[in-house]
Structure formats: structure tokens, C-alpha cells
């Protein structure tokens, strides 16, 4: 018990003392996850909106696939990205394995289905409401996509935050493609796993506390934005 309290005190000292190693890990984690979410938004939002408004054979199948991909095991995603980026893989020449870029790619693969599926859900609901009015105003299905995305912006922020929550807490995929290399690809989750196994609980606890803080902050933002979206009459709930 005494050992735990001393580790806990040391963890607090690391956070408050502005430990450069700790904050470098936090910063890299945030950079990787924020970038991954931005890329996912660029892919997932237009695709999700197009799935919501377009009508084509196989659309239902694609929606089911996209929903299924939301539950794709991160370790398997890590393995697939590893195979793609490894020296003998199709993208091996890019030499991205064990770099932050590889971790971003893995997180993009994990987060894009979430952003796409939630965007599809939100935009489809809004499209149902807007459909006749937009057609009456002469807006084509394709031209309605940016209109719907903009008007669903509040609900879509929650989709992005949900994606960020998944990305920042991810460990399995990033440890495979990032390699957990000190000062290069070491992020909060992988450091916690490593330092715990080494018995360096203070750093693990400090990062755990920060990770929980981020998770709570993200959830608080999701709640606040969802509330605002509900007041605006749009929520994906």
C-alpha cells in the first residue's frame, strides 16, 4: 500500500513537475490521434454522406460492411497495416514501418469506419427531412452533400470526438506498427503497457491519469455537443 502511494505521489510529481519525457509522449499521442482523426474525417464524412444520399445497387451491403468494420479488432488492423508496410509488403518501399506515420495509418483504418458510419446515420436522418425541400430548391443529390454535412455539423463533431476517443485509447495496432520506440513512436498507451511490465509504475500511472483526463474531457465535450445538437433538433441518438 505504501509502495502504491509512493508511486502515486511520484506520478503526480511527474505531471506537475512538467517531466519532459512524459509530456513528449503525451504530445506525440495527441499529434498522432488528432492527425488520424482529421484524415478519417476527410475520408469518412464525404463517404458517409454519399452513402446516406446516393442510391445504388449494393448500398445496403456497404452500410452493413461499414458498421461491421467499426468493431474490427485493433490487433488485426495492426497486423494488416504491418503486412502492408513491412519491407516485403506492397508499401514497403515507403519505409514507414515503426514511424508515427505508420501509427497514423493504423488509427485511420480504425477510426474511418466509425466516422463514416456515424456520418451516414446523421446525414441520412437529416436528408430525410431536407429531401423534398432541397429538390424543390433545385439542389441535386450530389450538391446536397455539402449542405447536409454543414447542417449536421454539431452531430458530426460528436462523431469525430468518438473517433478521437477510439484513437487515443488504442494500443494493439500502434504497438505493432509503431514498435514502441523511445522518443520516436512511444505513445501513452504503449508506454503504459511497457512501463507497467518493467515495474516503473509512476510513469505508467502519470500517463494513465492523463489518458483518463483526456477521455473524460472528450466525453464531456461529446455530451455538451450532443445536447446542443438535440436542441437544434438533430442527434444521432
Amino acid at each position, binding site marked *: 500500500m505504501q509502495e502504491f502511494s509512493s508511486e502515486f505521489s511520484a506520478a503526480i510529481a511527474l505531471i506537475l513537475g512538467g517531466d519532459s519525457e512524459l509530456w513528449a509522449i503525451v504530445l506525440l499521442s495527441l499529434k498522432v490521434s488528432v492527425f488520424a482523426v482529421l484524415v478519417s474525417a476527410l475520408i469518412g464524412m464525404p463517404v458517409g454522406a454519399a452513402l446516406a444520399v446516393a442510391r445504388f445497387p449494393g448500398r445496403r451491403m456497404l452500410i452493413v460492411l461499414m458498421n461491421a468494420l467499426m468493431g474490427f479488432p485493433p490487433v488485426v488492423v495492426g497486423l494488416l497495416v504491418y503486412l502492408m508496410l513491412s519491407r516485403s509488403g506492397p508499401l514497403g518501399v515507403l519505409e514507414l514501418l515503426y514511424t508515427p506515420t505508420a501509427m497514423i495509418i493504423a488509427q485511420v483504418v480504425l477510426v474511418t469506419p466509425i466516422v463514416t458510419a456515424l456520418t451516414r446515420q446523421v446525414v441520412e436522418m437529416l436528408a430525410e427531412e431536407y429531401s*423534398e*425541400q432541397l429538390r*424543390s430548391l*433545385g439542389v441535386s443529390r450530389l450538391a446536397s452533400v455539402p449542405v447536409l454535412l*454543414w*447542417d449536421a455539423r*454539431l452531430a458530426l463533431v460528436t462523431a469525430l470526438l468518438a473517433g478521437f476517443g477510439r484513437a487515443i485509447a488504442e494500443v494493439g495496432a500502434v504497438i505493432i506498427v509503431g514498435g514502441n520506440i523511445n522518443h520516436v513512436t512511444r505513445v501513452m498507451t504503449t508506454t503504459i503497457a511497457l512501463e507497467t511490465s518493467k515495474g516503473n509504475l509512476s510513469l505508467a500511472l502519470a500517463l494513465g491519469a492523463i489518458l483518463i483526463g483526456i477521455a473524460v474531457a472528450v466525453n464531456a465535450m461529446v455530451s455538451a455537443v450532443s445536447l446542443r445538437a438535440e436542441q437544434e433538433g438533430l442527434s444521432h441518438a
Partner: protein
Amino acid sequence: MRDVICDMSNCLTVENVQILSNGKVLLDVPSLILDGPGPTLLLGPNGAGKSLLLRCLHGLISPDRGRVVQDGNHLGAAQKARQAMVFQRPVLLRRSVAANLGFVLKRQGMGRRARKARIAELLAEGGLDGKARQSARSLSGGEAQRLAILRALALEPETLFLDEPTSALDPGATQMIERMVLRASARGVRIVMVTHDIGQARRLASDVVMMQGGHVVEHGPAKQVLDTPESEASRRYLAGGLVT
């Protein structure tokens, strides 16, 4: 039934239109010519096919048989661009009042400065001055419907369709909407409006299309149809009797 020959200008014609669903005929209008100068009101009980006919005239629903002709041309994109429609429940974009108007003006290629001036004009016309920056979703029912009408008028349509725009409004709000409709009509916009309200038909209509069971049972000058209806269905509806 009126027997008017359409001179092909400012004229909306329905030719042998049928809309079917699972083999059931929802709308069956062999012939209808809307060419009068003032507002046309479609009157009839629920399920008469009024809203269906309105959507068909605006091209939101394609008929299974027959066609709609505007000014001698089949209803295509060019014809639809000269029409606008206001729905029973106003569908406003989740933006400010001004942005709702700006959206259609921008689509028409209007520049920023001209848009600003036109938005101010429109808001004054609809009694919504001072609400430009307010969220459109926070407007009252009457204000929201006025904004929907202003947005439709911003398109400068030749024909404006209104689907029971005052069905959920109090008398004061209804009066404001009716004034806007009459002003638009006086400016030369063809008004085609659905209503259940016989009093509203008397106040607004130049001609009345009486509908029942997906059919036009009577069409003629408002006074004639409302005061001396020819069909039994019209007489019963106007007398407040049950019409199915």
C-alpha cells in the same frame, strides 16, 4: 368543369395524369388547366389527393401516366426552376434566418453585397427585420413559415405552390401569411395553394379546384364553386358534411 383553352403562356396543364400505388389509383386527373390570373386553391377533405397533385405539378413526384405541361412545355428542369414550393411544415436549414435566404440567393449567383441588400428587403417584407442573425430553428411557427415563403420568393418564381401553409397557425399568423400570398399574387406570381379552410379559400381564391378521392370533382371561379357548387361532393364538403 371549366372548359378553357390554354393560350400556352403562364399556364399549367395536367394531361391524363395518374399516380398509382400497389395497383391502387391515388390520383386520377384527366385534364386540368390552371391559367387564371389570381390564386388557385385546391380544396377537399384529407386523402383527396391535393398535396399529391401539388407535388406532381412541382415535379417532386413523377406521374405513372400522363404529364404536366407548363407554358406548352413538358415539366423539365427549366420549368421547375421557375417554380417554388412551401411545405405544410416549414423545412428550414439549421442556420441563421439570413443564411436561409442567403443560401438560395447564392445559388442564383448573386454577389455578397447584392445578397445582403436583398436579404434585408425580404426580411422587411416578411416582418422579420431584426431576426437576421437568429437561428431559424428558434423562430415561432408563424415566423418559420413566413421565412419559408420568403425563401421561396427569393427564387423569384413564376409559380409558387403552398401546401397548407397555415394549417398549424393561429389566426394572426394566418393573416400575415395570407397577406404575403396576396402580395405575391398581385406581383404576378401564380399561386397554387392547398387548404382545408373554406374561409381561407373565400378570402384568397380566384379559382377553386375541388378534389375528392384522388379526382378533381369541380374547378371554376371561386365564387361559383363556393356559392353554387355543381357536384354533390362539393356541396357536402362545403356544408361541413362527411366526405370520404
